[in-house]
């Protein structure tokens, strides 16, 4: 039984966060390198702006805002799933090597497959996805033990090792590439939201539409997996099967987000954590909150990063790490 006042509290927080996102999106749309004043925002949005105003809003800022919100949501959900199936509060798709897997795939594709620029960009999310999946597969295999099943602690250690070695591999590729491509990859690694265009939103959106309901549907299973193995087996959860499907979902979410935003870590760590401390550890309650928090956090970080220095700004991944790493250290000290 979930207490009614808990549900009520969750609803209130949900609505507060939703309005926070809307307000932040509004502010984010109004500030930036090109001028578009706040009082012109709504007329422009309704189709009464000049050509320049419409271009800035619809082709530059709006897609970027939507992409950051969606990517943040996907990362937060992915982190929430990972934390529960590994029973470790410190799991995050970035820290355990999924980002770097996607990164290596993107650089291999970018450097060695000669395609027309313009057509290939829409393939990148797919490539990143495959890279992340292969990496996750290896990490899973190597942290699996025939006697005891998946060892959550080992999963994280192996992930950290993989992420370091893959960054090394990336340097190998970069060292034999030409300058322009290197710049793109370096920016990608730092988490510069590069895919800020409508088609990328279409590439990201379906994953969320399918996987958010899927995860909520699995919420009870996640609750049980989070307790401990004997309990979960005792009440009839097919542990390995559930873990693999949920791991796949988490990888898919992280990979789709990372493929359009570049390497962003810590969102998947922070959002579920804050959500749990707000509404408790039940997945039905904290997952929606954590999704919204993730979206808001990334939007917030990108808005700051975009406006700190003009015109290029600091990659959102850097801003997120500056906020997220101290939070992580704080958690580590507290636990």
């Amino acid at each position: 039984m979930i207490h009614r006042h808990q549900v009520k509290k969750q609803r209130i927080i949900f609505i507060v966060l939703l309005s926070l996102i809307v307000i932040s999106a509004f502010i984010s749309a109004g500030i930036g390198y090109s001028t578009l004043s706040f009082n012109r925002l709504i007329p422009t949005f309704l189709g009464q702006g000049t050509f320049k105003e419409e271009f800035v809003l619809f082709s530059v800022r709006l897609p970027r805002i939507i992409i950051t919100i969606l990517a943040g949501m996907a990362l937060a959900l992915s982190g929430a799933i990972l934390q529960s199936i590994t029973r470790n509060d410190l799991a995050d798709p970035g820290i355990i090597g999924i980002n770097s897997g996607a990164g290596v795939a993107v650089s291999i594709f970018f450097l060695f497959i000669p395609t027309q620029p313009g057509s290939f960009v829409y393939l990148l999310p797919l490539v990143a996805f495959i890279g992340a999946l292969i990496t996750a597969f290896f990490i899973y295999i190597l942290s699996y033990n025939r006697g005891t099943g998946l060892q959550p602690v080992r999963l994280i250690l192996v992930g950290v090792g993989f992420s370091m070695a893959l960054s090394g591999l990336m340097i190998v590729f970069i060292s034999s590439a030409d300058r322009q491509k290197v710049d793109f990859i370096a920016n990608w690694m730092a988490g510069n939201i590069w895919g800020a265009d409508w088609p990328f939103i279409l590439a990201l959106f379906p994953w969320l539409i399918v996987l958010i309901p899927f995860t909520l549907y699995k919420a009870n299973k996640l609750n049980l997996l989070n307790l401990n193995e004997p309990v979960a087996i005792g009440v009839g959860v097919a542990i390995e099967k559930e873990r693999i499907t949920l791991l796949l979902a988490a990888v898919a979410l992280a990979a789709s987000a990372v493929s359009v935003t570049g390497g962003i870590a810590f969102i998947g760590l922070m959002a579920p954590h804050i959500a749990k401390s707000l509404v408790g550890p039940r997945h039905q309650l904290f997952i929606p909150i954590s999704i919204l928090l993730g979206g808001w956090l990334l939007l917030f970080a990108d808005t700051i990063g975009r406006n700190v220095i003009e015109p290029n700004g600091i990659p959102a991944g850097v801003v997120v790490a500056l906020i997220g790493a101290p939070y992580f250290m704080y958690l580590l000290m507290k636990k």
Partner: protein
Amino acid sequence: MKTSIHFSLKFGIGLILLVGMFCVSMVFGAASTSLLDVWQTLFTDVKSDAINILRELRLPREVAAMLVGAALAVSGAIMQGITRNPLADPGLLGLTSGANAALAISLALIPGINYFGITLVCFIGAAVGAIMVFGIGSVKKGGFSPLRIVLAGAAVSAFLYAVADGVGIYFKISKDVSMWTAGGLIGTSWSQLQMITPFIAIGIVVALLLSRQLTILSLNEEVAVGLGQKTIQTKSILFVVVILLAGASVALVGNMAFVGLMVPHIVRAIVGTDYRQIIPMSVIAGAILMLLADTIGRTINIPYETPVAAIIAIMGLPFFLVIVRKGGRVFQ
């Protein structure tokens, strides 16, 4: 006495391997040279094109490779001994990223900083990074467990790299910073070596002098205290040694993970758990490993150079995985 004879034999074989590897890495490269050229470079005053290449480019570079390999291996061995943690490594535990961040900040604030200044800054940065990681570890009892230390290291590194990135982009010096941090052994000069060598030499000598204490310390804290060791004093000195060695390495070649992790493990498999033997052997094995990695990096993709750090990282991963697997019980 039997073991010590045994050890000197192993040490001798190590030395011979080192000399062999040194010759190999001197001979192979983008410009082809012969063993005779190498001989003339080292022991005569003869001048020719090939000898000039060797004397001004390849020799300082290989000397740097050996120094850095030895320094990183010894600092890794010390860290593993003090923390009794098989996964300790200056690259994994925040020292390298700390030196990086400090480097970026100093390049931003003091544009004309000279090489000596940069070296000092790297020491400070390495110390800050290490103190952050060990600070997080030591808040809780049993905080030096491999998982916690690795996670703390990953978080601190992520933070400090973000600082370095952010500063680099903000002050528009990211290219200069990456030239330092990703430069590897490319363009190592004699003057840089003159600056760095004393630090590394002092570090290694102090480590050798304290190796007996380190062996006791690596067994158990209580045993060390019981045997009359001033553990805090010993640990502090060793900590300074680690920072000297790791900081000097970063100042010379930039980022280099996994050397400090791999070498002590290989060495332990050869000579056992006594640090009086582990440390001298680590010096040799570290130097050989770096020479090998550098030679591979220079020859695998001529005329491009593959950074040593990348080669090392790829060699290091299987090692890391084996250590994690072997030490599985420790982590439970």
